[in-house]
């Protein structure tokens, strides 16, 4: 009974929708930026490349609360970007999650492209393909394998609570998302609501992963 009333609540679906909008936006931006970045690092040869790779891999482990704090300082009224008035808005949450997800997608894309590059390099160079064009060609060619990198990023975004809590403020009806609601309801002692939301969150993540898997399988059958 409890879950039925919970699922009937329009506020719940508002929270779910905001969660999805924030996390999917962050993953989309991080994909658009991180994939070419990772591919360029994979294919490029420049001084300090090894250090960049180590740094990028290390950034995958950025603590969300620290990123949240950093973005908070940037966006707070006295901060360098304070005039934009973005603090405690969904946009601020997207920014924070993008910072968290970008290294994951870029680092995993870097590894995948680098592995594939061993297979492609000679052939592409023979055809006269160099530099960024080679990187983008390989990136596009292994796009279905790279879905895994996107899913890892999505996993990070949908699960994290620290960053969105700090820069969003968990304001009811404005910046309240699933993870912050679960944290709040748990501390208020409303365990059934927290648990219900947790089930919804897991179900959404599972559904997105299943859909991505089906796309990948179909594409691999089709394109080899």
């Amino acid at each position, binding site marked *: 009974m409890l879950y039925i009333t919970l699922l009937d609540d329009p506020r719940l679906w508002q929270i779910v929708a905001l969660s999805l909008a924030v996390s999917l936006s962050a993953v989309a931006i991080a994909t658009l930026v991180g994939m070419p970045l990772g591919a360029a690092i994979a294919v490029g040869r420049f001084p300090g490349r090894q250090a960049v790779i180590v740094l990028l891999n290390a950034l995958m482990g950025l603590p969300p609360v620290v990123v949240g704090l950093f973005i908070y300082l940037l966006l707070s009224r006295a901060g360098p970007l304070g005039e934009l008035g973005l603090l405690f808005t969904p946009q601020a949450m997207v920014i924070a999650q993008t910072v968290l997800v970008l290294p994951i997608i870029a680092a995993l894309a870097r590894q995948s492209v680098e592995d594939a590059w061993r*297979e492609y390099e*000679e*052939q592409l160079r*023979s*055809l006269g393909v160099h530099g960024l064009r080679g990187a983008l*060609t390989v990136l596009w*060619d292994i796009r279905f394998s790279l879905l895994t990198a996107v899913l890892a990023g999505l996993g990070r975004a949908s699960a994290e609570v620290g960053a969105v809590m700090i820069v969003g403020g968990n304001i009811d009806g404005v910046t309240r998302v699933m993870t912050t609601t679960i944290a709040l309801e748990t501390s208020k002692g409303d365990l059934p609501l927290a648990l219900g939301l947790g089930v919804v969150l897991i179900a959404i993540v599972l559904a997105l992963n299943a859909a991505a898997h089906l796309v990948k399988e179909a594409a691999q059958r089709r*394109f080899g």
Partner: protein
Amino acid sequence: MILPLRLENVSFREILKPLSLEIEAGPSTIILGANGAGKSVLMRIMHGLLAPSTGSVSWQGNDPGRSQAMVFQRPVMLRRSAYANVSYALKVAGVPAKERERLAAEALDEVGLRQIAHRPARVLSGGEQQRLALARAWALHPEVLFLDEPTANLDPGATREIETIIKAFDAAGTKIVMSTHNLGQARRLGDEVLYLHEGRIVERAPIERFFAQPGTPEARAFIKGELPWV
């Protein structure tokens, strides 16, 4: 015209000992030798994929550009249609879109893949992929075509198809430079032989003379040893 190609005192690490040679237009050249003799490295140096450790490689014309192409033992196909693989190569070479369509269709015709031009390249058979690699290399009608053991992974039927295509390219005036360790194939396709043994060119001779009267003990042993598998 970019030929002749001149190699002067070219060596590569421990694999190729310093060698000088000239590749002229006309007769198709077969680079023959056992596995590990340095055939692939020599071809990659000529094609420009590898820089020699010592010596120099020079074409008659300054920039070989797209006047020379190479087909590898294992062709790497992009995950797109057979047609798109050819037109990709043309695009990279700077061919305008309108012309790409015509040239790609012609090249696919040439290798007998027109019917399956829109199938994804990666799901084609090994023989079809190698024919596609030939079409991709041929689309711009290069003056020189390097072929690195193009049939080493193929069954006899597919090998015959590839050989027929190579003969047609040869007849159309493209200079063929092909490595192989298959003596029968060398006889069928070659006009002259460069015999490579442990990183050295030990013999260079017209094909008939090479097989009838090999001039060196190494070449004699190679021909004798290989014959049972021809």
